[in-house]
């Protein structure tokens, strides 16, 4: 395992090079926060709580959702697709490393740089400019664990989609479709409580809600206590293991069809 930490460090260092880009991403997030603020403000003119959530809770959920979006979106699919198309993947096969773990750590490096460069500044903007209140509670302590599990789930899905490049010329369509499904059905844009009940019941059985809804609820309503949060965490652990193993299985199958034209 120790061999993989330098990989995370390397992607972190590469990330620092693109400081100019972070400014625009933060600016984009601030504009998004403003738009979300006005949108939900106008929705909450009807009543103080909608679907059991107050304006402050919903805005915290949506705003923080945009701040952690950049962490949980791994781009592993695009990266793997590129490596397979260019044939670079061959160099990994000759090294004594596990391709899945390698990618996991590479993305962990980007997670760290995005956390410091984008997520934390966005969170500060929410607290100091939009005056969002965070209430104390046990959920705040569980949030980092939940976020890490969410990252594992998100990574496994992206990695799985990336492996499709073994079979297909381009993965643009599949990647975009996946991205939209994950974004909408995970509750990244709107809290799941807002969905019609019938749809909600289905969404709780899918892995996507474990990516955004679970960690965001821990921050939004941290006072709900362990009896509520522990089952949610267990569901995350279960999905993380299932999807990680599924992706592994798929890799073992897919690697057999690999043909690289010399060059």
């Amino acid at each position, binding site marked *: 395992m120790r061999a993989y930490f330098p990989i995370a460090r390397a992607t972190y260092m590469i990330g620092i090079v693109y400081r*100019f880009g972070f400014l*625009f991403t933060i600016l984009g997030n601030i504009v998004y926060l403003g738009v979300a603020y006005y949108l939900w403000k*106008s*929705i909450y003119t009807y009543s103080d709580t909608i679907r059991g959530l107050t304006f402050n809770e919903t805005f915290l959920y949506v705003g923080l959702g945009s701040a952690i979006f950049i962490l949980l979106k791994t781009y592993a699919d695009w990266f793997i697709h590129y490596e397979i198309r260019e044939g670079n993947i061959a160099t990994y096969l000759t090294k004594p490393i596990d391709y899945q773990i390698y990618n996991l750590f590479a993305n962990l490096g980007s997670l760290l740089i995005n956390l410091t460069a984008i997520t934390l500044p966005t969170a500060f903007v929410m607290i100091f400019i939009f005056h969002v209140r965070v209430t104390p509670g046990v959920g705040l302590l569980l949030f980092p664990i939940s976020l890490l599990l969410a990252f594992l789930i998100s990574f496994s899905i992206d990695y799985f989609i990336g492996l499709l490049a073994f079979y297909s010329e381009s993965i643009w369509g599949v990647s975009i479709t996946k991205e939209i499904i994950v974004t909408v059905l995970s509750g990244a844009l709107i809290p799941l409580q807002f969905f019609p009940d019938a749809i909600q019941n289905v969404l709780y059985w899918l892995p996507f809600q474990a990516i955004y809804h679970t960690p965001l609820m821990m921050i939004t309503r941290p006072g709900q206590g362990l009896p509520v949060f522990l089952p949610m965490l267990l569901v995350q652990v279960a999905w993380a293991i299932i999807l990680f193993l599924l992706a592994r299985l798929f890799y073992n199958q897919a690697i057999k069809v690999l043909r690289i034209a010399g060059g």
Partner: protein
Amino acid sequence: MRSLAEYIRLYFIIETQYIKARMQYRADFIISSIGMFFSSLATLGVFWVILESVPDLAGWTLMEMIFIYAFYMIAISPMQILFDHAWNIRFHVQQGTFLKYYFRPLNMMFYYMSEMFDLKGLTQLFVGIALLIYASTQLHLDWTLLRVLLLFITVFSAALVQISIIVAASCAAFWVVNSYPVLGLAWKLREFSPYPMSIFDGAFRFAFTYVIPIGFVAFYPSQLFLRPEEVSPLVYFSPLVGIGLFAITYWIWTKGVNSYTGTGS
């Protein structure tokens, strides 16, 4: 100088070849179109979910929101279909391949943008048209000949606004090489154009109306059809906004192209 007719003829010749080449990857085209279908409807899905919980959004009902959204989808399609190559300027600039565009007796922007014709963007256009027809029948909108003409004019200028914003953002590549962050921001702003501008106030409303006028991509022109009696005089300027903005963008493009000296590789 070549005439407009000649350029149109050229464009058809170039794109026919391009489409023929793309059609070798038929499965990719189908999957990409499905991806486009879902991604272009995501924000509408958000509006739908919200309007399940509250009766209207700043006074706009779900059906009206669908109309505005359909207008938005149609208005951003020309940018998606005809100007998709804007995203690649940074690669060409970085790798020095941008030089080749200087050596043809053609308008450079025309030549550069004609190299790509985004087929999957057609999905967005067709879904937008279908939704516009659906919403206008549900809303019992009266389509007189004059109204249809107005629709064409407003869509044309709204499309110009969207094209200008994206192309201007992509021009950042001429100065900073990696224009992706700037483009990413412009792309994100695009998603806010179907929002009712009346929910914003202060700096946001000002910015979305006068600085980066995304309000003119969908919300303001849609008002002409949905609530013509409430329209502010500002809306009648929307054709000018499109043409004016495109002129500015073309000026930025020319500046960028003239200042580009290559990356030395």
